[in-house]
């Protein structure tokens, strides 16, 4: 949960600035990598991997999920399962297409 003493809050503030710098740097890296003309598979992997790191930083520090109550983790775990299901749906279509081809 959120810290309460002014010193702890100021410490958190410094963390936010560090996270911001990391996010900005990773954004630049994403764009630079996109100009390297990597093969499609590698380009998708690198771009999504960097996006995943950036997303994790936002969720962990800005949304302070790094230190949250169990009920929220439970909600997010349930959401994650459904999220994976919704992404698995196109896989069926993809497999169908491979069979047709």
């Amino acid at each position, binding site marked *: *949960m*959120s810290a*309460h003493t*002014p010193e702890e*809050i*100021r410490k*958190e*503030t410094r963390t*936010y*600035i560090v*996270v*911001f710098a990391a*996010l*900005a740097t990773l*954004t*630049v890296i*994403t*764009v630079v990598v*996109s100009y390297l003309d990597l093969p*499609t598979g590698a*380009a*998708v992997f690198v*771009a*999504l991997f*960097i*996006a995943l790191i*950036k*997303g994790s930083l*936002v*969720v962990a520090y*800005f*949304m302070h999920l790094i230190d949250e*109550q*169990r*009920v*929220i983790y439970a*909600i*997010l775990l*349930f*959401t994650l399962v*459904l*999220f994976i299901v*919704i*992404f698995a*749906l*196109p896989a069926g*279509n*993809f497999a169908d*297409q491979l069979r047709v081809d």
Partner: protein
Amino acid sequence: MEIPYTVQVRPDTGLYNAKLGIWLFLASEAMLFGGLFSAYVLLRTGDPGWQSEALNVPMAMLNTMILITSSVTVVLGWASLRLGDFKKFRLYFGLTFLLACGFMVVKAFEYSAEFEHHLYPATNNFMGIYFTLTAVHGLHVLGGMVVVAYLLGPGAKMWNSEPEHFTNRVETFGLYWHFVDLVWIFLFPSLYLL
């Protein structure tokens, strides 16, 4: 009638109610955008004639920086309230509002340039999903701007009467805003760079 657990933590959840509420809302939002991203994957893998259009990467990068910066101003605004500094909160949230305006202006320039090049939602599958994803995301930015304006305007009165309740409102808004930022973090490479 008083709404319970707006400030006090509810013993069974360990949270004030609005925080649990916003996380449930964000879970539903994750499914909304999950469905749209899933449609993007379906279209991309299922369309033999798939063609990504060359979009304006520098403008999108600028918008990424704008949104990231606005996420920082939101957490700094919240931290200021926790330190009792309302003036700084107003400064950070004023900046957040301006940054959100900046994001929408850049997006408007992008859309108008695309229309000039005769790229519309009906042009091809890529443009269809591009406009759907970015417009739904843009509506979320607009919704956030309304809340920021409220927290800076009429909603700010609560700071004088119930400062902790107001601080919690700002925190819950922040969670929403970071989610909007998070969605863009994935939209940016998916639509502009791949």
